[in-house]
């Protein structure tokens, strides 16, 4: 029972990790970033690259990937997404195209085969939590996602950028009237979301196969977490990651991994249909 709970928590923390970046972009700008999964993939390849050629320690790859994919996100916003704010459905298509481009660039440079990432020794064993053994790496994933979550909360609620960002997400026109540079705020928001995707990619690379197509499953997963959680609430995203992690682990225990995934997606469709604002949305107007 406790094992199942821990496994659910562990799946939930992965979901939270990959969904966080999408939440920042989608929740505040309404932009469907279909390249999100491929930014996660890029983060994983940053790890591969820095370990192999620069011999950077694993945990140091986190800030590296964050900065790299973040800058890329900034560029994507400046060059492409910025032109599409008036046609949101087209941002979905354009970012999808960007995802295809990223995937092909990686395939051309690193090849289509699987890549290995070496995890530091102190993360390979088991740690005992409350009398139960748990893979240390899972624990690390959990801790990193909590840390990133706290970081996002701090940025949103304690910094100047965060305040501007929240203002722009509520009403871009009035924010502009108050002297906020809306374009700049949006570019930084996109960069933040993309950077978080990159950081998630580093952690994912430690327990999952790194290959050019790995992103497509993450983008669907992240969307489901964000949509179930309610578009503009961080707490909702956390709750839905935990809930979906739990459902996934219970269903996987009852049937198998594949059907568990299918049930999860069906659940998400039902939530979109019956609770368009998400299960954990506090706004009731």
């Amino acid at each position, binding site marked *: 029972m406790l094992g199942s709970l821990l496994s659910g928590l562990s799946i939930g923390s992965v979901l939270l990790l990959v969904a966080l970046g999408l939440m920042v972009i989608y929740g505040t700008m309404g932009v469907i970033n279909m390249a999100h999964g491929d930014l996660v993939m890029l983060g994983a390849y940053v790890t591969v690259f820095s370990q192999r050629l620069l011999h950077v320690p694993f945990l140091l790859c986190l800030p590296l990937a964050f900065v790299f994919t973040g800058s890329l996100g900034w560029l994507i916003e400046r060059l492409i997404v910025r032109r599409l704010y008036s046609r*949101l459905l*087209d941002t979905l298509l354009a970012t999808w195209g960007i995802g295809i481009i990223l995937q092909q660039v990686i395939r051309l440079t690193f090849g289509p085969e699987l890549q290995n990432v070496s995890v530091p020794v102190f993360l390979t064993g088991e740690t005992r939590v409350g009398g139960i053994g748990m893979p240390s790496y899972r624990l690390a994933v959990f801790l990193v996602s909590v840390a990133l979550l706290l970081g996002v909360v701090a940025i949103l609620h304690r910094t100047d950028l965060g305040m501007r960002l929240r203002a722009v997400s509520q009403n871009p026109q009035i924010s502009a009237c108050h002297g906020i540079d809306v374009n700049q705020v949006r570019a930084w928001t996109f960069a933040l979301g993309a950077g978080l995707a990159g950081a998630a990619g580093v952690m994912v690379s430690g327990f999952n196969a790194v290959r050019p197509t790995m992103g497509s499953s993450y983008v669907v997963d992240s969307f489901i977490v964000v*949509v179930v959680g309610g578009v503009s609430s961080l707490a909702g995203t956390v709750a839905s990651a935990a809930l979906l992690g739990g459902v996934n682990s219970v269903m996987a225990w009852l049937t198998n991994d594949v059907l568990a995934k299918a049930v999860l997606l069906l659940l998400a469709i039902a939530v979109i249909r019956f609770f368009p604002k998400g299960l954990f949305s506090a706004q009731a107007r």
Partner: protein
Amino acid sequence: MNLLRIRRFMLSPYTLLSAAILIVPLFVVDPFWINRLGLYLVFSILALSMALCWGQAGILSLGHGAFFGLGAYCMAMSLKLLSPDSLNQGTPFPLPDFITWNTPPGEALKLPWLWVPFQNLGFGMAAALLVPALFAAVVGWFVFYGGVSGVFISIITLALVVILNLVVIDQQPITNGFNGLNNLAPFDLAGVVFDPYGLPAYYLIAGICVLLLLGLRWLGSTRAGLLFRAVQADEQRVQYFGYDVAVYKIFAFSLSALIAGLAGLLFVVNSQYASPTIMDVSISIAVVVWTAVGGRQSLIGAVLGALAINGAQNALSESGSLVHVWQLIIGIVFVLVVVFLPRGLAGLGADLWQHLRPQAKAVEAPALVAEAELLSVPVPQNSHQSGQRQS
């Protein structure tokens, strides 16, 4: 007057494209290329179904691979049961070879119930059209009456194709999992054998493609087609005139799924297999890309987009390493088209044409809605709403 109309019809892009599709075999004799061209026309039909659903009715489906794959699987199941291999399994009924392999020794061989009706080829063909259409109707009923719109439709359809793909791979005993259904019987209808490398199969596909091109053009000119476009331009206004918008959306979505299923059926005739790779996310992406690049609102654009992209991809993939570069080029072209040419290459062509003939005016979206308003029969309880509306 009549002569002028005939001349206009003869010279219209629709007639020219249809004629080109039908006379191509006069110039291409290599059976390999006949088969290839047939495959591209199958993809053109799939792109037509996307143009109906997305370009006309404004429903961006990211899961059309699901309908295509369902159509293909239904057809492949029937052809699998008709294949010599299935007929020679030593059972009184036809049995797919993989079911024999999967049955543990000592257990009785039996045809899974799902396969039983597919012993009839007519059933398989009807199912290839109706299963996707009904599936789409149920999904459409579920989402459109719930007021789900825009981006969420895309996410839901994307999730659907992922689910279907997972289930087909998981249900290995019935579907043969990853390997899919191959080693099929050739399609034989009333004595005519449609050899995938022969002209009858090409003309079957080409004929259906031309009929759909003209039929969908006709649909666009009817009241229903006008309403599709009006819904896309301003859904709420159409609703205020007393139309049940959801019904029109469900109709467009189901018809589009039926055409995608038909494309799946023809794919099996042309390629003689069905596998999870033809009902996955990547084919759903591909059809959106063809349609977007060709021009989402133009039926001709959709057909040409599918033909051009697949043709170019094939030409480049002959040279091995260029395949991935090609994918990169397609990605870049797609992004550029979405950002700068939302109406695709067909829109670009139309703009150039307009430029050369400035007196002709394009029909703008507000005019469409106004036209729909003229057509609408005032419904008593709604009439005050359309009276209040300001334009």
